């Protein structure tokens, strides 16, 4: 917000600012693709870009970006994580808001970067990036953006843990789907962990899969047939478990649902 306001203040048309306080037509953001999207589902970051562009946002996708470093951080290797995160700080330097189609990656930057860079030369830069970073649906909600109609649904929403408990957000994805005219069928225990947990999914696979199966069954029981979420990692896990176990469930990232 701060960044876009600064953009606005640079603008000479003072009257327009009063009438359109968010300057949607001139808003410029940086998009963090996320490594999972790069690795498994480029369609997710591309859908995010399209939805933002439809809202009139100017989207820059820095080509040199890599990863927020969460895998190493949560695996207990902060030094290795910091080396990658330093690169991310450089890539996303600037006044713009950084939009992330992942509650987990956004949560990493917002919540963990300040701890990771405490006492380091990049501490200020880390705090600055933490302030400018925002999850995709939170961004839509914060600026009251309307991308127009998306899928009609129905979908069911899995509240990813980092979205829910690190970013303390459960309203913005629902709001975005409502604005897009997409029907939502809530599942039971939508706030319960699906068992993905990054490295946890491969260090304790059986436990992880058990929770994934429960989540997949709850999603199916909602009657929606398709599960969506702000986090691709959870979806890959839920739908991967479902496919292995023959549970009929489709999955798309929320950006894809909003896209069409």
């Amino acid at each position, binding site marked *: 917000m701060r960044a876009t306001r600064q953009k606005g203040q640079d603008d000479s048309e003072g009257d327009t600012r009063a009438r359109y306080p968010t300057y949607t037509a001139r808003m410029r953001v940086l998009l963090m693709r996320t490594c999972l999207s790069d690795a498994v589902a480029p369609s997710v970051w591309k859908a995010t870009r399209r939805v933002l562009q439809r809202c009139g946002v100017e989207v820059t996708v820095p080509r040199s970006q890599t990863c927020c470093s969460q895998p190493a951080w949560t695996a207990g290797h902060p030094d290795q994580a910091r080396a990658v995160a330093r690169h991310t700080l450089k890539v996303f330097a600037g006044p713009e808001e950084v939009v992330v189609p992942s509650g987990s990656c956004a949560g990493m930057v917002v919540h963990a970067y300040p701890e990771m860079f405490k006492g380091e030369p990049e501490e200020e830069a880390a705090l600055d990036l933490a302030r400018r970073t925002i999850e995709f649906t939170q961004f839509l909600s914060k600026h009251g953006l309307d991308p127009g109609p998306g899928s009609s649904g129905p979908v069911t929403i899995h509240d990813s843990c980092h979205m829910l408990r690190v970013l303390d957000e459960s309203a913005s994805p629902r709001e975005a789907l409502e604005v897009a005219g997409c029907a939502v069928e809530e599942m039971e225990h939508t706030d319960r962990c699906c068992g993905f947990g990054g490295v946890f999914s491969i260090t304790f*696979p059986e436990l992880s899969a058990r929770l994934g199966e429960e989540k997949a069954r709850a999603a199916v029981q909602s009657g929606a047939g398709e599960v969506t979420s702000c986090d691709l990692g959870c979806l890959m896990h839920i739908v991967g478990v479902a496919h292995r176990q023959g549970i009929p469930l489709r999955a798309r990232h929320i950006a894809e649902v909003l896209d069409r």
Partner: protein
Amino acid sequence: MSTWRRRDAGGVAYSDVEGTLRERTIVALSDRTLRGNLDTAATSWGEGRDAMRRDHGLDEMRERAREIRRQNIRDLPALLSEMQAKVREAGGTVVRAADGAEACRYITGLARARGVRVVAKSKSMATEEIKLNEALEDAGLEVVETDLGEWILQLAEEHPSHIIAPAVHLNRSQVADLFREEAGTDDVPDDREGLVAHARVRLREKFAQAGMGVSGVNLGVASTGTVCIVENEGNARLVTSQPRIHVAVMGMERVVADWDQAAHILQVLPMAAIGQDAANYVNLITGPRREDEADGPEEFHLVIVDGGRGALRGTEFEEALSCIRCGACLYSCPMWRSVGGQAYGSPYSGPIGAVITPLLEGPASPASRDLPFMSSLCGACGEACPVGIPLQDLLVRARARASSPATRTSGLAFRAWSRLWRHPSTYRTWMAGWRLMLRARGKAGWASHLPGPGAGWTQVRDMPTRWPPRR
């Protein structure tokens, strides 16, 4: 904040636990009865806690509880000195034990010196931590657990699965079977009241024989030297008043400054622990029986155990000392709900157990070094904690301190990962290679066998190679 360093300490985790942590989760996951019992307990706790949030403002009380406990830990040395002085003033004896072994030596020595044969115990995590029962039994004493759940476990020869509700993993018919076996008769009722009545009769016989009562301590109040023991069954009242000697074992961090603070924490504790606004009994004990009093023990001994706690002050793990052992993080944890506390192999299970067991033992201890990794970092624990311990952050920090062959292997892997992923060109090359591999392995849109670390993924689930995934 200084960095916490390893110490060599006696084991907190149980030494008789079999298999790796992951193997134990697999065994527990196959136990349907266990799963049902855990789910019933956790659901009932969740409903109670929701009511506390709604009707009593538990969320609002949490901020003050957090402040109180953080301040207590900062002031710990002074509070402990004050506590010690006040207990002595009231006629009690205070012993500061550097570790569990020292505490056990003192208590067994005391029992021997006083000619005690039977020791009655009320529920205490600190004594479970220092393995007091084993020490007393090795010294030839008979130990009787008088908390219903602990007695059930004693009969079952099992370890507790929850901080507050140790036998929560067992259901009524399993308990009835144990009682029948112990009593040597089938004449034990099946219903709840009948079972409790049966246990009461059996346990009362033991109280009469006990020469020493051992309790834990929920809170020590420094300003008056009072120990608070919260319970639901009345057995702790008997343990602390009936035998000639009362020994209270307290983890050194469990002290608050005054009654204003104690009142707040004592309100928060049952709300978080059992989802009720009060526990049935709150015992407040200041020293032994006085001359003008009819009840109470002749001797009161307070054993304050460090056991690795003091070394955590001033480190990135300091907030773990705020814990009031309510067990809320256990019930809220999807992992604990799935496998129960026994799989953790430590008296302290769930998220707080996964953090403090390796802290108290040292990060290289084979018995506990894997514990911090048994979490999806979902944050439900931190949300449930009534004193606001950021448990998911502590879990991440504990992972960074862990030391094992597995962490060394992953350290090497992440070193390579970090080299590749900090440069866009090598990152893009890696990604291109990965995507080629995915396509090759999953032509129909799904891969069922991936190499390397991916094998852990495809062991239990498929990997979509097209997105959105195909049906």
